Each structure stands twice: as C-alpha cells, then as structure tokens.
C-alpha cells in the first residue's frame, strides 16, 4: 500500500479507537454511577486512544518514507557488479536514474548492460517488499496502540493529563517547524556565502564600488573580469528606500492622525479599509504601474524642466514603493495613536489645548516609540521589496546620487543572478547568496530594533 493510502487508513483506525474507547469509558463508568466517577471525561479517554493509535503509526510511516528510498538505493548500488560500480558522484546518479527508469519501464532493457537490468529487477522487488512491510507495520502499530489505550480506560487513570501533555508537545512541534525552517534557510545561505567568499575576498565585496558580475565561462573569454563590489547596489537600495520612506512616512503618519483624531466614525470605517487595500495590491501590479505609468511620466516631466532623466529611474521606483508601504505606516501608527490612553487626551483638552496642540504635544510624543517601530518595519519591507524595483529601477549598477538616474538594488541583482541557466558553483551565482545574506542581516537588524522599540513602548502603558 502507498503512503497516500496508509494515511487515511490510520485516521480511520484512530476514529475507531476514539469511538470504542468512548464507549468503553461509559461502560466502565456505568456501574460506578455515571461518568462523574471517572478521573476524566469519556472524551479524554477517547482522545487518548486516538492519539495512541495515530501518533506512533504516523511516526513510523514518516520515518519509513524518509529512509526507504535511501536504503533501497544503497542496497541496489551495492549489488552492482564491480565493473559497473560508479566512479564519481555524477556517474552514480546517472547509473541510478538508469536503473529506476528501467524499473519503471521507460527504458528498453536491451539497451543497458546486464548488471543494470538485474539491479532494476532487484529495485522493483525491494520496493514491493518495503511497501508490504510498511503497510503491515503501520497498521499493526496503530492497532496495538489503540488497543493498549483501550485497555487502559479505567476510572483511576487520568486521561486528561496525558492528553494535555501530548497536545502541548504537538504545539511545540508546530512552533519548532517555523523556527527550524528559519534556521535552515539561514544555514543554507551562510554555507553558500562562505563558498562565495572563498572565491571573492570579503573586503572587495563589502567595499568595492564596481558591480559587474559577468565572469568568464571559458579560459579564453575576454572582457568579463567580474567585479563584485556591493556599494553601488546598497546605495541604490538605500536611495530607493529613502525615497519610498520620504513618501510613506509623512503621508502615512498624517493619514493615521486624521483617521484616529479627526475622522468621524463613519468616515473612518470607509477610509481605513480603503487605505489598507493598498497593501493588498500585488507588488507586480505596482511594478508595472511604476514601469509603464510613473517612470515615463517622470521622464517627460524632467525633460520639460530641462533635466535629463533615464526612462527607468530610482525616483519612479521609490515613489511607487512609497505608495505601497503607506498602509504599513498608517495602519501601525493608527493603532499606537489609538492605544494612547484617553485620559491623556482628556487631560490636555481640559487644560484648553486644541486638538492639534494635544496631538503635537501629548499624543504624538507618547505614541512616538510605537510609530518608530512601524516606520522601521516599513523600512525593512522597502529594502526587501523586489518586484517593483525589478520592473522600474533598472539593472545598471550606477553609483549615483541622482534619483533620475537608473540604479539597481540588491534584490534586483539577486533575481538576475539566479534566473536563467546558471552554473551553481560560479562566483556569479554564489554572489546572490552573499547579497541575500547581507540583505537578511540588514532587515533582521531593522526588525530587531523595531521590536525592541515597540516593546519598550508597551511597557510604558500597561
């Protein structure tokens, strides 16, 4: 039986275990004078039986699925005659796919050596055996587990406790999945980054002012030296993010002030969702809005003013990105402004301060840490944003301070380095991981600062 069929079967068994344990617990309770005399409610005995039935079986199933392929592979490879034993890793994977294709009937047996075809037969056999064993074992364990729990339905045993404990562990496992994934991502990036720094010195990467990642593919190729200085990328990223923040912070903040202090409840109930809808627009839509509408408009405007502007400009990307992150700033600011206690507002108003004086002198300073947190979160969002800049900012790694020039960003370069047919061990592709690492560190720092600031703010009023 396949894993896909075993899963529902285990669940059915668990349901059966649940039902029978439920019935048994009622039956056990009846002579004692009702379920009040059990240590736990029948549902707990039943849940425990279901857990006993399902969890060990699922663990076995998972472990089997994880190791089955590898073990069978090793046995098959070991069975190959000496002359067919692969010499390199590449050769080994070629031989393996030959064997499995043959086993799957996709390859004509006449076209391969005898050793390979007998290995294919062995592979097929092992797979069938493994599948039979697996089904048997899983069902057996499920039934045993369920039965064990069923026999332990007794008025003196507290099933509630063990169910609680199991659930607690289950929740921990779920939380661990997220954390482990993050750690896994970090490690895979670190690994590639270290390989990159083996090819390009770190000082050149961090302080170089020239970015042109085209390396020679062949020894005789000319003109592709490859330069990996991130400074132009980070200045591009910073410029676009700065333009975005320049738009988003004032607009977002003032709209938050309007929403929380001045708008009537009806106005607020209309405007706030509309503003938050901006956050729901896919970034790719913002991207072509920037590339097709805003960038040409800015170029024409600049030409009218007698300025030279490229058709892909940092300004266009920054402006649109600024609009995109307005809801981050406004929504978070609105929340913290609302969280300022009403008593402070009243205290200021009762002293004869106007609404705007109250806003400026009392509410805003009190909410400032929270607002800063929101702004920093928006900034890390702006720095990591990819789609808009890919479409609107350009690819040229210019080291410039002119927002009308085209610039490129870290994220854009990662995308261009990794798309298309690439070798995964050249400095060019590895550079993407180093860039990703840098970006990760920068946004992580921003997020940590933001969370610290927000937490400090919370302590002040709770």
């Amino acid at each position: 039986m396949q894993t896909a069929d075993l899963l529902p079967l285990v669940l059915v068994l668990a349901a059966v275990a649940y039902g029978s344990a439920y019935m048994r617990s009622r039956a056990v309770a009846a002579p004692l004078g009702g379920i009040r005399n059990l240590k736990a409610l029948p549902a707990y005995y039943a849940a425990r039986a279901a857990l006993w039935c399902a969890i060990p079986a699922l663990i076995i199933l998972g472990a089997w699925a994880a190791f089955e392929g590898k073990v069978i592979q090793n046995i098959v490879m070991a069975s190959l005659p000496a002359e067919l034993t692969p010499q390199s890793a590449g050769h080994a994977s070629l031989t393996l796919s030959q064997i499995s294709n043959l086993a799957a009937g996709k390859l004509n047996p006449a076209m391969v050596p005898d050793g390979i075809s007998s290995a294919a037969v062995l592979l097929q056999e092992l797979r069938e055996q493994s599948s039979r064993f697996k089904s048997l074992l899983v069902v057996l364990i499920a039934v045993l587990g369920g039965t064990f729990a069923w026999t332990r339905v007794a008025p003196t045993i507290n099933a509630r406790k063990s169910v609680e404990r199991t659930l607690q562990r289950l929740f921990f496992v779920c939380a661990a999945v997220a954390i482990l994934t993050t750690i896994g991502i970090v490690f895979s990036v670190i690994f590639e980054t270290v390989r990159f720094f083996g090819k390009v010195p770190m000082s050149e990467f961090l302080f170089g002012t020239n970015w042109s990642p085209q390396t020679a593919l062949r020894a005789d190729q000319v003109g592709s030296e490859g330069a990996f200085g991130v400074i132009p990328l980070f200045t591009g990223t910073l410029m676009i993010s700065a333009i975005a923040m320049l738009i988003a912070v004032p607009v977002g903040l003032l709209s938050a002030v309007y929403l929380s202090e001045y708008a009537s409840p009806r106005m607020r109930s209309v405007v706030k969702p509309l503003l938050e809808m901006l956050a729901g627009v896919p970034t790719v839509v913002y991207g072509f809005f920037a590339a097709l509408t805003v960038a040409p408009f800015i170029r024409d405007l600049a030409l009218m003013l007698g300025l030279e502007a490229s058709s892909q400009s940092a300004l266009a990307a920054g402006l649109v990105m600024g609009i995109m992150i307005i809801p981050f700033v406004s929504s978070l600011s609105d929340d913290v402004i609302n969280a300022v206690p009403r008593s402070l507002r009243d205290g200021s108003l009762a002293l004869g301060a106007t609404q705007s004086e109250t806003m400026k002198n009392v509410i805003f300073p009190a909410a400032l840490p929270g607002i800063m947190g929101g702004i920093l979160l928006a900034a890390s969002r702006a720095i990591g944003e990819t789609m808009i800049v890919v479409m609107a900012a350009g690819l040229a790694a210019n080291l410039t301070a002119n927002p009308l020039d085209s610039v490129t960003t870290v994220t854009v370069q990662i995308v261009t380095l990794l798309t298309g047919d690439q070798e995964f061990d050249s400095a060019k592709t590895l550079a993407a991981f180093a860039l990703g690492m840098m970006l990760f560190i920068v946004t992580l720092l921003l997020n940590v600062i933001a969370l610290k600031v927000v937490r400090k703010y919370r302590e002040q009023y709770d």
Partner: protein
Amino acid sequence: MSISMSPAETTIEEGKTVGIPFSDDPKFHLRNVEVFYGESPAIKNISLDIARNEVIAFIGPSGCGKSTFLRCLNRMNDSIESCQIKGSLLLDGQDIYDPKRDVVELRARVGMVFQKPNPFPKSIYDNVAYGPRIHGLANRKSDLDDVVENSLRKAGLWNEVKDRLDAMATGMSGGQQQRLCIARAIAVSPEVVLMDEPCSALDPIATARIEELIAELSESYTIVIVTHSMQQAARVSNRTAYFHLGHLVEVNDTSKVFTMPEHELTESYITGRFG
C-alpha cells in the same frame, strides 16, 4: 414622633429639586439642563446655581449622571459624538454652549482634575508648564519658572519635587501624580476647578492630603467635586447635591444634607441603604 423626623419628600418629579438649588450671585447659572447619549437621557431637566468660591459636592449612586453633569461645565462631552446637551448653561452670564464660544478660553477658565491621575509622560516641570505654554501665559523662562513653582506650592507638592523637576511625572506615586494634576490645572489660573472623583484611585493618606488641598484652594477657586465618598463630601464641601437616575433630587448646605435630608432618597443613600 418618628413621622415628623422622616423626610417630607418621597417621590421624584422631573425638574423638581428640594433644598436650596439657587443662589443670588451664581458663577454657573444652569437651567433645565438635559443630556442625551443618543436616544437615552442621562440628565433629566436639572436646574442649579453654583455660587462663587463655594465648594459643591455632587454625590449619588453610580450611573446617576453626576460625572456627565460635571463634564458639561467645561464641554468635555463635546468629544463624545452621540452626546447632546439642551438647556441653558451660563458661566458668568455667558452661554457655555454658544456655537461662537471659544472652547479653549472656556477650558482655560474652567480647569479639570480627573478620576485617575493622568500626568503626561513628560517631566514634572513640563507637566505643570504645559498649560501656561499653550496659552502663552509666561513669555520668559523665569516667568514660567515662577508659575511652575507657585502652582506646585499651591498643590503642596513643591517641597517633594523641587529637586527633581526634570524627573518623569509618571514615576511619582499615585497621590503625588494627582496633586501634580491639580498643580497642572491651577497653573493656567482657572476660576473654577472641576474634580471628577479625584481621590478614588488613592490611598487614605494621599486622600487626606488632597482634601486639605481642596480646603486651601477653596479660598481662591470655585470647586465642583464629584465623589463617591460621603465622608469626603461632608468634609470638604459647603453644599452637597444629590443625584439620582439623572435627576437632581436635593441640594442643600452640606451639614443639612447629612443631618436632616429633606428627601427620602437622599436619606436612603446617605444612610447606606443603597448606592
């Protein structure tokens, strides 16, 4: 014998108040005041005079409308959208609710101290200087220093804080915070100070300090105090007004209210039969 001792009035009738609700030279002249939250009435046709430089206490069970009524006097109910106020409310003969009236000027004249101490998260100095700065009462730093010192002295807080005026106000004890709020209110030289249960969040010692302070302040200000503590009303006020379910049932000299109430409901309340 016992019949003659019991209060004469037993029923509540809208707009009818027993005792002495009016005065010859009122600071506040309030007639037929009605307040609605949406459709539901919170204050039902109350008429009352608040005399110059008197301390008047508003007492009554929770939800009787005494705080709502107090907040009408400096238009703090304005910020509540659904709140509607009818009737005539005059401060020194001028309509408080005149649409042309500047609410900033009104609140500068009618200060307020709230139930929970609400110092701004600023320094002690900046808290007291907040009002004078907004109203431009002190042009030079030395003037402002004087205003701050005087207000803190009047609030009986100067000696405790004079060495740490730059410390955060939120770090003080509850009683100190409330006295700071009083100092903050009197720093703008109001004519009236409204106090909405100023001691309900304080311990007995801090409460005693505030009550002393009210007695001192009553020489220069008109004070309206809402309180849940009848002993407090008896200790600090000249007159006491008893509110019941949005009605003003009885107003009289404090000693009279607490010894010989004219209304049965007042008697029930002060003897602790409900409330």
